[in-house]
């Protein structure tokens, strides 16, 4: 039963990442990210239940609070301040992005094969899902113009790394996870300030505008 649920959570985790590439509305992106947080927390909880490990349960709780409540709240606050609601012209169009996501998923699957053979466990088999989400996150951050999309990309990368850590090793030490999450929180806060300032200075949050600072 746990296996089935874990598979379901992993599937949801990957699907939300694909969904992020699919949708253009920034609000939908944040919703999808929240759902992904639920899936990630779900993975952690299932692992904790499976291994009857209190520390993993603690990590799951912390991850859950951060990814489901705090980060979406911060992102929505940023979104409320800037008037842009949609990713209008990504550098790579949506259909091609989706095909790229498919290719990246296949790559993740191929690349993770030796890793899985190293420590064959039922949960490690799902590790490619984490790697795929990480790659999709990089792709998103590299091809989208809006600052919020890029923050979402960075968060996808973090989610992917966390998922790989959970699935491959069966849990991360609490301290490490908390440290990483704190870093991330800081990054989001910095970006929030940056976005607000960018908007005030240029009237948009297209990060390509920053090039003007160089000239």
């Amino acid at each position, binding site marked *: 039963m746990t296996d089935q649920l874990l598979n379901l959570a992993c599937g949801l985790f990957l699907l939300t990442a694909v969904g992020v590439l699919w949708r253009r509305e920034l609000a939908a992106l944040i919703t999808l990210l929240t759902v992904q947080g639920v899936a990630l927390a779900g993975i952690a909880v299932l692992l904790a239940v499976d291994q009857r490990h209190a520390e993993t349960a603690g990590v799951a709780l912390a991850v859950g609070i951060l990814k489901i409540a705090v980060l979406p709240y911060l992102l929505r606050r940023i979104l409320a301040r800037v008037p842009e609601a949609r990713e209008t012209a990504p550098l790579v*169009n949506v*259909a*091609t992005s989706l095909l790229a996501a498919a290719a990246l998923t*296949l790559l993740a*699957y*191929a690349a993770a*094969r030796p890793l899985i053979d190293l420590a064959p466990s039922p949960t490690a088999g799902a590790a490619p899902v984490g790697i795929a989400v990480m790659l999709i996150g990089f792709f998103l951050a590299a091809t989208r113009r809006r600052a919020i999309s890029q923050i979402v990309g960075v968060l996808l990368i973090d989610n992917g790394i966390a998922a790989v850590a959970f699935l491959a090793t069966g849990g991360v030490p609490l301290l490490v996870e908390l440290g990483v999450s704190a870093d991330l929180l800081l990054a989001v806060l910095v970006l929030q300030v940056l976005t607000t300032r960018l908007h005030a200075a240029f009237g948009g949050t297209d990060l390509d505008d920053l090039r003007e600072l160089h000239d």
Partner: protein
Amino acid sequence: MNGVAASLGAAFVLAGVGGVAGLAVPARWRSAAVGAVTAAVGVAGAVSGVAAVSGTGWQVRLPGLLPLAGVTLAVDPLAGWFLLLIGGVAAVVGVYTIGYAGTSGLGPAARGSSAVLPVFVAAMLLVPAAGSVSTFLLAWELMAMASLLLVLSEHRHSRAVRSAALWYAAMTQAGFVVVLLGLAWLAAAVGGESFAAIRAGAAGLSPVVSGGVFLLCVAGFASKAGAVPLHPWLPRAHAEAPSHVSALMSAAMVKLGVYGIVRLGFDLLGGGPRWWWLLLGALGAVSALYGILQAAVAADLKRLLAFSTSENVGLILLGLAAAGVWAEAGQPAVAGVALAAALLHAANHAGFKTLLFCGAGSVLRATGTRDLDRMGGLSRRMPATTALFTVGVLGAAALPLGNGFISEWLLLQSLLHRDPAGGTVLTIAAPVAVAVVALTAGVGVVTYVKALGVGFLARPRGEGAAAAVESPPSMLAGMGLAAAVCAGLAVVPVVLAPALDRVVTGLRAGPGPLGGSSATLRLAGIASTISPLWIAVGVVGLAVGCAAAGRALGRARRRVPAWDCGDGPLTARMEYTATAFAEPLQRVFDDVLAPEQAVDVTQSAESAYLVRAVEYRRRLPDRVEARLYRPLITAVDAIGRAARALATGSVHRYLAYMLAALVAVLLAGVVR
């Protein structure tokens, strides 16, 4: 002397007679004589093929015929399969030529072209019959030269013919050199040039040699087969050659590239490592997708058919790649199915492409244009041609009731198979290949609906189409033969199962892959079945029943003007054109096709707000050609210009070059 020898000998003798007839018979009877003899050569070739695939082998060595190497012929079931295919195509094309070339004595009916036609067919028959490297290369070059002369048939007609012939000549010679290098290397490495000696010695080759030989030869063979990116000659030569020659080249000659790959990869080298086949598969996938996309956006009917040839060759290569991979992965049953799929698709493509190119020739003859945007209305003016073309379209679009569907179904079955121990690469490659085949099939349907729907239906879009009349009986007879073969292959492909079994087992690629009763095709190692006969009976029976019931019970149909939005009458300018039909697809694949578009808006002199004229231009250049070949041509051009310094016009200097070269060769021999 057995059946293979007798019929093959008859084919070569008849080809000689045909060549003489082409030169000697007066213009009035020339096409009839040459066409009849070519058809006879084809029939003889096909008979020898039937004998060979039924298990009659034959080999002979004629040392006196060529200095040094002699001529070696060896016919096995694989050779027989291709003899049958070439012979069948030639028989149909021979009959068609009688009416197509006509009695004018010009273009395809001129002395030279007429004499070369049967020789070309004989050269093609010689390629699979060759049993040694030197004989094979001789036949290959003979075939290339003969086809080049035929492409040039209408050189007085337009400049494009000359340019096409130049492209073809350059690429076919480059391909020949590469194949020559590869096969010579192979023969030198095993120490013998007969195929039997190579077969025996291949096991001892180092992977570097066999890999190098495979790469060189596949490059040469794939360029003959028209695989992307080695294809630029194909849309030119197929479009500019007379249509019966296009049919021979596209349906038969191109398949010999496939034959070369099968003979080398599966027979002479006896299979190889996985990377060979993955590379071949990638080549096939790119050919299939790029070929069909270019075909879908082409407005020139023969260019469309030519690019569709690249697509079908891509699918055949995918089948060969699947066969190689499965054989290497220890799944001989599935490998056999994949190989059978590739060979059957080669035969099916030969059938429907002969029919389609002949149909295009009839349309070209009747309307004077190859441009789909200027056709239309032919279903009333040329009903028989339209009906026959429809049979070809069903096959080419790989729809049920068409012959292409059966081989694509087989191909999909071999790709849908999953091997739990196959490893990561296979787990990824199989679904990607399935997606490629699916997209190719889908875009193929768009392409052929466009060709048939825009080219033949509704109202004529040009004066040529409006004045079209039905083709003469010999052309219809030729196309009718091809259509009958296509229909037969679509409904009872089971008749070919024993022949395919013998070819596949002869290559030691796997057990006999196909079986089943008269109606149902069963596969070895895969549980799926298909009943082409029942599909045909079901669809045709139900459709006829439905139409008959409607006619019996309902009221008769009444002709009325179509809805014209109250602004009638409808003109031909209001119909959808081929360009418009494919425009959404062109937009979807914008990044791949990279069309060049320009819109010029001219304002009226009185006011900038009034538009006087809008001009829209669109060009769809072949991107592979522009990126890959243009730089190459520029570089070769520059080298040529630099080399002009060597040629001053002085005879003494030229003689001195010769002397220097001779001395250098002798010195090299001495030093060694």
